[in-house]
């Protein structure tokens, strides 16, 4: 018998979910457009330039930022580097195995990366110290600690929060193509806060923030990332199912409005400390 990748949802539970959906409700007394409680803890990892632990329901994710000196890529000599990785740790789920990332994990990492990169959140031109020779590399590494649905949004929120709080050393360029750490710390060159919103298609209903059970029975999934000024910067449709054109349009506009709500929540966390 093959090993399973996600829990089998019982027929009884499926029937329950369907009956709730017909009344515009979901398990846990949620509306179709309601996120589960989101909590954020910042600055957990002192050795990192910035860090955040985000919980959406019981999904728990940690992101850490490290800033280091590096060489630029040949085709972009005056730009710094932004590297985003995401990993579902085997501790997070009975279905996660140690080893190289499978296609779901690779997709997760690349989608989170796109959401941040395409929004221009980090102005990488401001990370250049000596063109062609020395730039700063910003690493954002995200680890999923407990899986309970909607990893796309949780990993994204953890990453952007950690980046928003990160500092980098202020370097002074000296003779002989060297740089000196002045000892001063400055914030990363952040231009906006991209927010991802993931929706699932459940029995022809569009719901935000799918739980683990909902993910097991959803027909399809779509994630939109948007930046501050009502601009969509990344999208990814997943799972073998299809959306109607109207559903896609609805998903896009939901992502923009819901995204703004969540942006305010994360902004407040960054300003105040924890939620």
């Amino acid at each position, binding site marked *: *018998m093959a090993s*399973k990748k996600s829990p*089998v949802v*019982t*027929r*009884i539970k*499926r029937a*329950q979910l369907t009956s709730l959906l017909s009344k515009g409700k979901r398990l846990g007394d949620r509306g179709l457009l309601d996120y589960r409680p989101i909590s954020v803890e910042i600055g957990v990892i002192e050795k990192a330039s910035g860090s955040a632990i985000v919980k959406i329901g019981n999904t728990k994710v940690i992101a850490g930022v490290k800033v280091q000196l590096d060489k630029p890529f040949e085709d972009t000599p005056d730009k710094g580097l932004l590297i985003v990785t995401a990993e579902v740790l085997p501790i997070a789920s009975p279905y996660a195995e140690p080893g190289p990332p499978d296609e779901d994990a690779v997709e997760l990492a690349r989608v989170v990366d796109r959401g941040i990169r395409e929004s221009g959140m980090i102005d990488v031109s401001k990370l250049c110290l000596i063109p062609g020779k020395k730039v700063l590399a910003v690493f954002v590494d995200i680890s999923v600690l407990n899986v309970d649905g909607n990893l796309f949004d949780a990993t994204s929120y953890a990453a952007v929060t950690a980046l928003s709080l990160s500092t980098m050393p202020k370097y002074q360029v000296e003779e002989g193509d060297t740089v000196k750490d002045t000892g001063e710390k400055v914030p990363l060159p952040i231009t906006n806060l991209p927010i991802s919103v993931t929706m699932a298609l459940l029995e022809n209903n569009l719901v935000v923030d799918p739980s683990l059970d909902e993910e097991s029975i959803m027909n399809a999934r779509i994630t939109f990332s948007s930046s501050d000024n009502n601009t969509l910067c990344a999208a990814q449709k997943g799972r073998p199912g299809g959306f109607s054109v109207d559903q896609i349009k609805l998903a896009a506009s939901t992502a923009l409005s819901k995204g703004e709500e969540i942006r305010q929540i994360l902004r407040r966390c960054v300003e105040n400390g924890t939620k």
Partner: protein
Amino acid sequence: MSEVKRKYVIPGELVAEGSYRNVSNIFRVEQRYYSTRIGLAEVLEDSVRVIPLSGPYFPRVDDLVIGKITDFSAFAWEVDISACLPAFLPAQSVFGREYSPARDSLTNKFAVGDLIVARIAAFDRTRDPLLTVSDHGLGLVSSGEVVKISPIKVPRVIGKKGTMIKTIESGTNCRLTVGQNGLIVIDGSAEGILKAASALKLIEEEAHIADLNQKVQELISKTTGVERNE
């Protein structure tokens, strides 16, 4: 010789010294008996045992269990009973000796995602647990909600001579089917199910306190609509 009537212990802690005949969750070094689990240690005349507070479900023959069909082959259904190993329900035990894969379709009887009430027919160190649904009251679960509690707490849910389960059933007007593996099917009205589920949660969290029956009764008799699980 230190003897303790009842105390909380963790693995490796000394529970008693002497000579005892019956032990449970204990390992012995000469005349000293140590706990192998986190739990409540009890020393009685002839026995030393630790009632564990956590741990996996260990199937025993004749246990009633609630299982979820997760897969099937030509000859058996694979059933998740939340134990260390998956259990199997042989097609033969359902269709009879004359069972033929060509003629009898497994998925028509029980499909992936179905819940069943079954009994452990066989289990030992050399094989996966085998189930049977051949008795009265066993078979497909067609309605109700399933709640999962730690299997260690199941005796508390049933209570002495079934008193606790009767309290819940009468107070909520629901029927409870309690699997030894910690899965419990609650069948009744939506309100009743909610009350029963919160009663079960209370038992799981406070299994080790004394006047549990009273607390459960109080919880159930509260007016509906007020108590809400988060």
